[in-house]
């Protein structure tokens, strides 16, 4: 009986050593605070609208 308890204790300790030796999981980083995606396309489209109107009016 005593022998069994020793075995359990030894196995538990050795398993604990393995468990504690693992790196803890990475903490989550700061969330992305970047702007709304694709805004550059909107800006480019605005530029095209403005240029089209501007040059259209200049030609008249």
């Amino acid at each position, binding site marked *: 009986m005593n022998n069994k308890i020793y075995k359990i204790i030894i196995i538990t300790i050795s398993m604990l050593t393995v468990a504690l030796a693992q790196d803890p999981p990475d903490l989550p980083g700061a969330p*992305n605070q970047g702007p709304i995606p694709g805004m550059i396309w909107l800006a480019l489209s605005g530029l095209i609208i403005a240029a089209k109107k501007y040059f259209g009016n200049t030609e008249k």
Partner: protein
Amino acid sequence: MVKASIFYIVWQIIYDLIILPDGRLDHFLSVSVAVLAKNALSLFGWNISALDRLIVIEGYRGVEVLNGCNALTLMALYSGFIISFQGPNKKRIIYLLGGIGIIFILNVIRIMAFSLATVYFQPHWDTFHEFSPFIFFYPFVLWTWYQWTLLSDDQYRTDSGLSFA
């Protein structure tokens, strides 16, 4: 073009040096969007809770309205065009305030959609987030910009008429 460039440079400086460090405007926009989205979804019978910038439908993943998601940058971009492009001043104010208000409301609807996306298509949430501005914001902004150029066109014609008279 020069006017627009100056506007965006001034905006960026003001944002980086005053608005961002202060944080209140970003926080107000984010929290109000989250709370309004939560209230709207509650009205439709969803069991949803809000904590500051975070809204969570019971049993599903939460949605956090970050600074980048509160549409402040988009409001600035939208305003820059209306301010820079010539047009009648009275209507300019209407376009500015109305446009900013509508962008705010569209953002509330967008955040509601994000929350519902956690229920109906969570695996595609990132894709939905990536393309959401093309669905909710950009058609409206482009249409409004185009309408504004038409207005400015009318004024240009009137001005030309007057100068010839």
